[in-house]
């Protein structure tokens, strides 16, 4: 089937080119049947990509080692879940995933707009087809996932052990869905610029796609953080790593875009800003894909060296040139139809929030590319670490959270200072109360930025709560509904607004977790022998015994050997047991002995965490295998040529040797307060985004015939 898969890609490339050409010809000539034909070509492209992806997945699932990609990233003993997800652990598979998701998104938006945006949609089709065509071009020309091997190996290399984590396997498709999703508003923005239709039509047609993209990208970032926290063995969830930053940047600018398009929809303002933001978001999404795959920056997340770095850079440069050229050429069409009425208005604060978000993105961009910049200027590669990022990002994040609270209370056009003060009085009092209580009863005062963040979070939650209560109260005055019903119907009929409020609450809660866990973390690195005890914070941790497990680690990653520890943990009256371990994966390196190969391959930490709403207790172990070096070397000499069954017995004996007389092992124990609220806040934000993206009941309104003014009133009442 590899030939069929390759054919899908080749035909897909030509189909994409045809879709672009037919759509442009239809738009220029005014012959709608060519536009329809171009749109159909995009549907066909989606079918081809899905077909190719299914063929590749099937090859992975049945461990068809005649595929070079399967041999490189999977093996017969890789667990089925990881066989399924190993496709996107490879560069070629990632490219195919990108093209598949893009063709599906493009088909969906073109189907939904098939009877509207007649001027814009053909150009958007051409842009989407060109982007998909570019990724197909990369696969056909350089990274064909259907390449086969002349000699089929007996066994594959297996999936990179670091990637054998559920969060890490869901994380890439989430990120890619986010990246790809932003190509939809980008394509329609370009279409609007070319067609000189710079009103809010393109925004209305694609806003939901942008929101979905934002949600997926955010979820992907959170899952990446969760993976880092529970797999990498260093205890943190964010390290300002280049690849982490690469996913954060389009999310930040995408957040700014989602806010500023509301200003264009409501007031006809910020048109230049909006098209610039979406072009920047898409460019950053491409940059994110490039950074993960190019290997130009050192990152724990950058897997494999790339053969397509130059092509990606040329494409990114083309996107920037096209976007900037078009925006400049259409400046006259992008002139706003309204002016800012007052600095105390929602649109003014949205603009401020945009500046902060874009500022954050620029900081992250500078820090990420600083090694390349410094090398270009001075010849020496210098990096900026987390302290640099934290120093600059913290004040901006504080301002952002504060704006997250102020934005929702402001009305469009203008609010008088007196009215504003009245509206924010209760949330502000709540913030002050929170700060005072924390100062009086906790150590929060030790970190001023954290204390401020806690107060601002209280303010945001107060604002959101107040908005729900006031809205439901206003509704009850009219409808006399019960509180729960009024709340539910209020949110249900204003999904965009109240979904947005939920997102704000979620982000505030997330920042609460970040502020507490980064400022008040307690960590200890200690070497312990069985029976010894250490203290970290209020916890007393005793190394009870060593463990050694063969052929089946706790996480189901397929590791052949796993060494660990049984740890008894006490905090006051509370006690529990943790089982941190370290998995060892065999290497195919022929320079190693037959037995050594099982101990000297990749190793990954299997952290054990006691999750809690108030604090997590996190524990990792790094066993010292030095005592086994001598016996392993002897086993290599004596049993190197023995049958596999004998070698398995020998490895079992060595594992037992470690378990019975383990040398001191290195432990890292961390008490991380409120870290669970990062994940909870993220989940609340995702829920809010889903509410906001869900179609409103107004879309199902029927038309009513009457006098126009009365009709408007009546239709509004129905909603």
């Amino acid at each position, binding site marked *: 089937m590899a*030939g*069929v898969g390759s054919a899908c890609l080749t035909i897909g490339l030509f189909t994409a080119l045809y879709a672009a050409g037919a759509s442009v010809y239809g738009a220029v000539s005014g012959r709608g*049947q060519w536009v329809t034909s171009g749109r159909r070509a995009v549907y066909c492209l989606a079918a081809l990509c899905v077909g190719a992806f299914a063929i590749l997945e099937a090859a992975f699932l049945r461990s068809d080692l005649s595929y070079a990609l399967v041999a490189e990233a999977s093996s017969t003993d890789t667990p089925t879940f990881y066989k399924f997800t190993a496709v996107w652990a490879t560069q070629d598979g990632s490219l195919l995933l990108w093209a598949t998701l893009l063709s599906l998104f493009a088909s969906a938006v073109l189907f939904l707009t098939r009877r*509207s945006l007649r001027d814009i949609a053909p150009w958007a089709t051409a842009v989407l087809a060109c982007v998909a065509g570019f990724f197909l071009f990369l696969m056909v020309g350089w990274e064909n996932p259907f390449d086969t091997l002349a000699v089929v190996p007996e066994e594959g290399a297996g999936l990179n052990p670091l990637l054998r984590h559920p969060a890490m396997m869901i994380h890439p498709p989430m990120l890619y869905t986010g990246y790809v999703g932003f190509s939809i508003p980008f394509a329609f923005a370009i279409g609007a610029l070319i067609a000189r239709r710079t009103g809010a039509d393109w925004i209305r047609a694609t806003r939901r796609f942008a929101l979905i993209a934002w949600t997926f990208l955010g979820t992907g970032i959170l899952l990446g953080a969760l993976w880092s926290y529970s797999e990498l063995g260093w205890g943190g969830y964010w390290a300002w790593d280049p690849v982490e930053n690469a996913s954060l940047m389009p999310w930040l600018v995408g957040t700014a875009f989602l806010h500023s398009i509301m200003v264009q929809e409501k007031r006809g303002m910020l048109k230049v800003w909006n098209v610039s933001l979406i072009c920047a978001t898409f460019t950053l999404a491409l940059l994110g894909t490039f950074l993960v795959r190019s290997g130009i920056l050192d990152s724990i997340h950058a897997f494999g060296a790339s053969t397509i770095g130059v092509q990606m850079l040329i494409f990114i440069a083309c996107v920037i040139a096209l976007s900037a050229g078009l925006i400049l050429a259409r400046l006259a069409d992008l002139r706003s139809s309204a002016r800012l009425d007052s600095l105390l208005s929602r649109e003014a604060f949205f603009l401020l929030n945009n500046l902060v978000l874009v500022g954050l993105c620029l900081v992250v961009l500078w820090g990420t590319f600083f090694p390349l910049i410094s090398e270009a200027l001075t010849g020496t590669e210098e990096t900026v670490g987390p302290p640099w990022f934290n120093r600059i990002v913290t004040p901006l994040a504080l301002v952002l959270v504060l704006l997250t609270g102020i934005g929702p209370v402001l009305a469009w056009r203008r609010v008088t200072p007196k009215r504003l003060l009245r509206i924010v009085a209760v949330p502000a009092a709540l913030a002050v109360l929170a700060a005072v209580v924390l100062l009086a009863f906790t150590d929060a005062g030790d970190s001023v930025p954290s204390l401020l963040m806690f107060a601002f979070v209280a303010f945001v939650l107060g604002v959101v709560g107040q908005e729900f209560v006031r809205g439901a109260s206003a509704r009850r005055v009219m409808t006399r509904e019960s509180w729960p019903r009024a709340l539910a119907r209020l949110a249900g*009929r204003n999904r*965009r607004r109240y979904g947005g409020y939920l997102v704000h609450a979620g982000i505030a809660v997330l920042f609460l977790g970040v502020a507490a866990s980064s400022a008040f973390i307690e960590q200890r690195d200690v070497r312990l022998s069985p029976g010894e005890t250490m203290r970290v914070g209020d916890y007393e941790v005793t190394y009870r015994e060593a463990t050694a497990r063969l052929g089946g680690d706790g996480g189901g990653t397929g590791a052949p050997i796993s060494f660990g520890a049984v740890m008894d943990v006490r905090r006051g009256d509370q006690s529990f047991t943790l089982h941190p371990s370290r998995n060892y994966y065999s290497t195919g390196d022929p320079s190693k002995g037959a037995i050594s190969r099982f101990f000297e391959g990749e190793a990954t930490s299997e952290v054990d965490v006691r999750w809690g709403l108030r604090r997590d207790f996190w524990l990792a172990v790094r066993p010292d295998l030095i005592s086994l070096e001598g016996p392993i070397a002897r086993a290599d000499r004596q049993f190197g040529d023995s049958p596999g069954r004998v070698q398995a017995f020998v490895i079992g004996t060595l594992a037992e040797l470690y378990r019975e007389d383990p040398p001191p092992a290195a432990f890292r124990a961390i008490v991380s307060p409120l870290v669970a609220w990062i994940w909870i806040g993220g989940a609340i934000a995702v829920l809010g985004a889903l509410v906001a993206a869900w179609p409103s009941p107004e879309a199902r309104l029927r038309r009513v015939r009457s006098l126009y003014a009365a009709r*408007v009133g009546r239709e509004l009442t129905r909603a």
Partner: protein
Amino acid sequence: MEYGLALLALAALIALVVTVPLRRGDQEERQDQTRIEELRAAKEAKYREIRDAELDHRMGKVSREDWRAVDRDLRDEAIEILRELDRLEGTPPEPGARTPS
């Protein structure tokens, strides 16, 4: 061989599907239908704005005077959209329909 055959079969299939609109030359979409869809979307957006403004007023964010001014403008814009919708859909304006000021 497998690649070549698949290439030919897929190319033929795709060509067949994408050329259907070209072979049905008379199936070109009507310009008016496109505009009608856009106006319907614009109408829903305008209604949402009116509702938002009213909610803001009820929640005490906007004074009654400001809200009335905004509401009047938004309703006039909505009426304009409805007028154009009716014109494109071939429905004569209702007798006595108010002209926006």
